[in-house]
Each structure stands twice: as structure tokens, then as C-alpha cells.
């Protein structure tokens, strides 16, 4: 009887261990799978050619990813730069200033933002942000814009990473011990001086890591961005140009790509770029956050 229990335990252990290791290896499998599908185009064109050429003519066999790369970078940089101050101020307010009843209302609101599906943000973007840009913003700068622009994509993308950033910041700020805050206040510093010189200073690595994590999230946003970015394969030169980020490229062409083997391989290469960048960003920020000694979000 006793041995049966032990055997059960051993068997369960084996099953669980293999499930764990298999699911772990998913990271490796994704990498290998994408590389395998992308290898035809890598053997035909050089890596530099693919990344820095801006002529995108799949049916002539020219695959320059530069327009898509630059669009992705534009959208991400603009999104993060407007959302970072807002997220920081909100998180500081929530951890350092707000009374508990304020938190009771803010956290559910952030939960809702985090829970809404990407396609809902896309609908909101096309109904609110795109007409707003077309009517109220663009006329001051250029003759006409339909509103489907880098600006629209980065506003929508920014709102999407806002809840992630705020909740990461809140967690990071709460790792600073209250003793430090009290010591600073006892020396006559105001709350903001304490925040600026003690809390923010101590958590800079964490803030950076959270930022990198949010950037990697913004890089991969697909459907919402696709619905508001304009989808023109060109290198954007201003906020009011249409653009075509990498995830949108993959999503838009999934049906056509079967007709041309090299085209399919090119799109898989695009997915591979995304995978590698996101993987590196995530690894970096997780290692930093783990070192800060807290399991986050």
C-alpha cells in the first residue's frame, strides 16, 4: 500500500516535470520554427540588405524592411514618450499622495484599460482619435490628412501600455521602505522632494526595466495599431505621415503569402525580428526586476 503511494508520487513527478520542461521549451521552439521558415530569404538576401533597404516589392523579389522598421520605431518612441510622464505621475500620486478611497476607484479603472481587447482600442481609435487628428490637429500643419497616421497609432498604442506601466511603477515604488521616506520628511523635505530625491533615485533601474518591458509590449501591438496607422509602406518623416509597422505587415498579408514562397519567408523573417527584439528586451527587464527582489505584475 505504501509503495503504491510512493509510485503515484514518482509518476506524478515525472509527468509534471515533463510538462514543465515542454512548456519551457516553447521559447526555443518558437525561435527555431521562425528561423527555419525565414531561412530561405536569409540565404537569398543579406541581413543588412533586408533591414536597411527601403524598396518593398514582394512580387519582384525585393524585400526591404526599412519602412516597416522605421514605422515601428516611430510609433513606439512617440507612444512611450507621451505615456511615460503620465504613467510616472499617476503612479507617484497613487503610492505617495493618494488617500485609500482614491485608489479604490483608480485601480479598477486601470484594470478595465488592461482588460480591454486590442480590437476595442482599434475601434475607439478609428471612431475618436482618427477623426480628431483629421479635423483638429492636421489642418494646422498640412493641407489634408485622413487621420490614419503615426500620431494616431502612437496615441492608441500609448493608451494600451498605460495600465502596464502604472502597475509596474506602483509595484516598484512600494519596494522603497517607508523608513527612508520618513527620514527624508523628518529632515524638512516636502513630499515631492522626498519622492524625487529618495524614491525615484532608488528605483531608477526598476523604472528603466519597466520602460523596456512596456516598449516590448508596444512593439508587438497588432490589430489596434493596424486599424489606425494607414498601412502605407513608406518611411514616415513626420507624425502626420501614414506608416506600416511590422506586426501590421504580418497581419495584413497572411492570406497572400502562400502564393509566393519567398514572400511567406519574408513575413516569417519579420516575425523573427519581432521575436528576437521582444525576447531580448523582456530578458533584460525581467533580470533587472528579479534582482530588485520582487515578483512583478
Amino acid at each position: 500500500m505504501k509503495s503504491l503511494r510512493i509510485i503515484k508520487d514518482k509518476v506524478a513527478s515525472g509527468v509534471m516535470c515533463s510538462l514543465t520542461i515542454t512548456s519551457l521549451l516553447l521559447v526555443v521552439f518558437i525561435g527555431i520554427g521562425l528561423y527555419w521558415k525565414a531561412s530561405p530569404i536569409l540565404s537569398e538576401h543579406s541581413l543588412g540588405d533586408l533591414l536597411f533597404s527601403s524598396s518593398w516589392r514582394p512580387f519582384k523579389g525585393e524585400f526591404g524592411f526599412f519602412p516597416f522598421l522605421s514605422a515601428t520605431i516611430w510609433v513606439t518612441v512617440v507612444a512611450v514618450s507621451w505615456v511615460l510622464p503620465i504613467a510616472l505621475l499617476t503612479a507617484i500620486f497613487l503610492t505617495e499622495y493618494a488617500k485609500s478611497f482614491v485608489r479604490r476607484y483608480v485601480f479598477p479603472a486601470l484594470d478595465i484599460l488592461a482588460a480591454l481587447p486590442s480590437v476595442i482600442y482599434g475601434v475607439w481609435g478609428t471612431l475618436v482619435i482618427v477623426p480628431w487628428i483629421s479635423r483638429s490637429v492636421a489642418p494646422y500643419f498640412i493641407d489634408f490628412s485622413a487621420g490614419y497616421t503615426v500620431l494616431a497609432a502612437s496615441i492608441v498604442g500609448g493608451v494600451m501600455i498605460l495600465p502596464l506601466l502604472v502597475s509596474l511603477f506602483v509595484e516598484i515604488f512600494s519596494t522603497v521602505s517607508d523608513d527612508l521616506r520618513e527620514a527624508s520628511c523628518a529632515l524638512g523635505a516636502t513630499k515631492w522632494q522626498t519622492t524625487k530625491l529618495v524614491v525615484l533615485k532608488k528605483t531608477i533601474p526598476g523604472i528603466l526595466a519597466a520602460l523596456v518591458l512596456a516598449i516590448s509590449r508596444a512593439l508587438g501591438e497588432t490589430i489596434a495599431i493596424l486599424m489606425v496607422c494607414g498601412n502605407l509602406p513608406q518611411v514616415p518623416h513626420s507624425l502626420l505621415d501614414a506608416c506600416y509597422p511590422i506586426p501590421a505587415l504580418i497581419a495584413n498579408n497572411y492570406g497572400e503569402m502562400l502564393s509566393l514562397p519567398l514572400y511567406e519567408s519574408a513575413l516569417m523573417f519579420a516575425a523573427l525580428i519581432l521575436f528576437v527584439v521582444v525576447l531580448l528586451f523582456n530578458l533584460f527587464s525581467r533580470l533587472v526586476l528579479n534582482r530588485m527582489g520582487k515578483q512583478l505584475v
Partner: protein
Amino acid sequence: MKFIEEKIIKLLMILSMIVVFGFVISIIYTILVRGSAAMSWEMISQLPSGGFYIGKEGGFLNAIVGSLYIVIASTVLGLLISIPVLFYLNIYLSQKSKLAYFARLAYDVLFGIPSIVYGAFAFAIMIFFGLRTSLLSGIIVITLLIIPVLIRSMDEVARDFPREILEASFSLGATRLETVKVLLRQIAPGIVTATLLAVGRAIGDAAAVLFTAGYTDTIPTSLSQPVATLPLAVFFQLSSPSTEVQDRAYAAALVLTIIVLVLSVSGRFITRRFSKNKVK
């Protein structure tokens, strides 16, 4: 001087809070107003008929049912895989185990990988095995997508579980497998919240199913048929030039939003309500 700075920064904080709330209200308000204008019983109770995409009769029942099929199947599969992993990480492996450390890191990374990459990967696999867009492929890719969500959020609860209780169970002569029951009872609310979170992510995901599940006007009767999903119904109908069809996208968006909001609210409720049995 420092007091003026304090005032300014406080003002900025309140402004940014208003901006955050403004976004939430704007999104919910837009979806509610546009969605309820186009909403009707027909929309959620009928399949699209012949002229649906040029503005004639029909609804998007196919997408609602399709989403439910995918979400239910992949949540069950996901739980079947992630609960054993959770127990392995928390009971079988010691807290200093290297494998547990790397496993957690890997799930964190998997969690961060965009769903479009999962979609592309699954598409490559499908071609390799000669599968076509189908319910089965959709279920598999969504399962892969939610496993890291499930494991990470359950693990967060399980890690706070006091080791002494596990040791008490071992000292009574229980095997590790039998100790699982002790942990299971303690983290049950965590499992429910994690499940709701995963369901929310699964039902809202469009990029991964775009490649794998396809789209169809009928309700699939077997695993090998393509299946429609709500996010894709919104997406495809919105890209139609006819305003009547676009209105239906808003109605579908409303249904999706309501489902997600209910999930989010009940998640909060359950965490509060069912944590009373927890030993701290």
C-alpha cells in the same frame, strides 16, 4: 520655493489622473453609444445570411459561438497543463532550484511575446503538418498563448503560500502528491482569478487566431473546420465600406466589451470574497 514646486507637481499629477480617467471614460462611452445604437436581438441570435456583408439580414452568432468554443476548449486545456506545472514549481522543486528560476523567467518572457508572433509560429507549424485554418489550430494557439498567463498569475499566489504548511503536511507522512491538495485548497481563489484573466485574454485576442482559426459564416461542426471569432468579426466588418456593416462591428465590439468587463469585475469580486479561507 519648494512649496511652489510641490503645488505644481501636485497639479500635474491630478491632471494626469484626469487624463487616465478621460481615456477610460472615452473608450467605454464610445463603445457603449455606438454599439447600443446598432445592437438588436437579431445581431446576437442569428447567423449571417447571404447579404449580410452588404447590409442585409443576419447577425454574428457565428462569431459569438466560435469565440466560446475556442475560449472554453483552450482554457480547459491550458488549466490541465498549467496546474501540474504550478505544483511542480511550488511543491516538488525547492525554492532555490535553478530549474524553477529559469522556468519562471521563461514564462515571463513567453508572456511578453506578442500574439502575432504566436500566430506566425503556429502558422508555420500548421503548414509543416499540413493543417489548414481550423477550430483545432485556433484552440492550440490560444492555449499556448494563455499558458504563461495562467502559470504566472497562479504562481504569484502560490509563492506567498507559507512553506510551514507544506512541511506540516510532509511531517504527517503525506507524499508530495498528497500535499498538492493542501496547496490546492489554499490557492483556489487564485486559480479562479487566473482563469478569468486568461479567458479575458483568450477572447480578446485577434492577431493569433487571424492566421490559425480563419473566418466563416457558419458554426463549425468539427475540429477541422474554420471558425469565426468576435474580435475578427469586429475587425472585418469595420473594414467594410458600407456603414450598415460597420454599425454591426460596433455591436460586436459592444458584446466583446461587456464580456470582458464582466470578467474583470467578477475577478475582483472573487478575489475579495473567497480569500477568507486563506491561512496567512
